């Protein structure tokens, strides 16, 4: 369990019990963000914006 940071207390003050602190199951990886993102390979062009817009139309 992590100690409650100032940010955590600030959010809890407003949202009471609705704040869920995400505790990752594993220790942080050594890979950089760029390395992580480069692993998400996609062979074709995809308009990620359009996908989000479609999700939000529902």
């Amino acid at each position, binding site marked *: 369990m*992590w*100690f409650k*940071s*100032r*940010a*955590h207390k*600030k*959010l809890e003050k*407003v*949202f*009471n019990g*609705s*704040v*869920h*602190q*995400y*505790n*990752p199951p*594993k*220790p*942080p*990886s050594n*890979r*950089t*963000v*760029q390395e*992580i*993102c*480069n*692993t*998400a390979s*996609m*062979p*074709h*062009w*995809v*308009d*990620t*914006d*359009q*996908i*989000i817009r*479609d*999700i*939000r*139309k529902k």
Partner: protein
Amino acid sequence: MTSAKSKGSQKNLYDHPLPDDKIIFWDTNFVISALFPSFKERYENLCSKATHTPLSIAELEERQNLAYLFKRHQASAAFIERLIQSEMNVAFSSILFTEVYFGIKYIELETVYGSREQAKKELGDDPKILTQHIPAILRNWNLFLELLGKFPGRIFAINPTEAVIVTEVLRLRIQYGLTPNDSFHLATSITSGCKDIVAFDRALTNVGIDEGLNVWCTFFQKKDPGVARTPGLGNRPE
């Protein structure tokens, strides 16, 4: 005497100092932008083709769009790295998890079936087609979790259970006609009392600024040659 609500501002992912209260909200579009450099290959093909053949108008527009999205991907990934280095706290509405799942699923299907329409048709005809895509979807989902894992103890998902959030969602829906999901993201950010959200959605950005938030949405660097810094979120070619 009532004072008019002061407007927020646009922030640049590279240039501006991070918020003093050490909390920043995320919109789903930002996470998806950071995760997927999908357009690089297609962009490079078009650039390569342009060296020996004039591109059609449609191809030129596509290349411009791809350049925008690729820059945005780079900026988003660099911004996450910046947040990690500065030990920032990240908060978002818990609907982000569902949206990221849908985003990852459709991205995977679209890469296989060529177009979004075809992917939707295939899925509608037979949901069992998802079976063969489970490994790819899970792989990308694990990358998303790996990103979250870079913020140990500093990720806060806010469940939209408080009446104050729902009231704000309804107000945003009525006043600005925002989509429900946009409204949830923005309402959570507004009611938190924090001032900063990173988002690229045009409607969400405009409303956020009107509501007094600092919206982190621009990412062109001063050193970028020949790239105009247009006002508004209009960095994206229409």
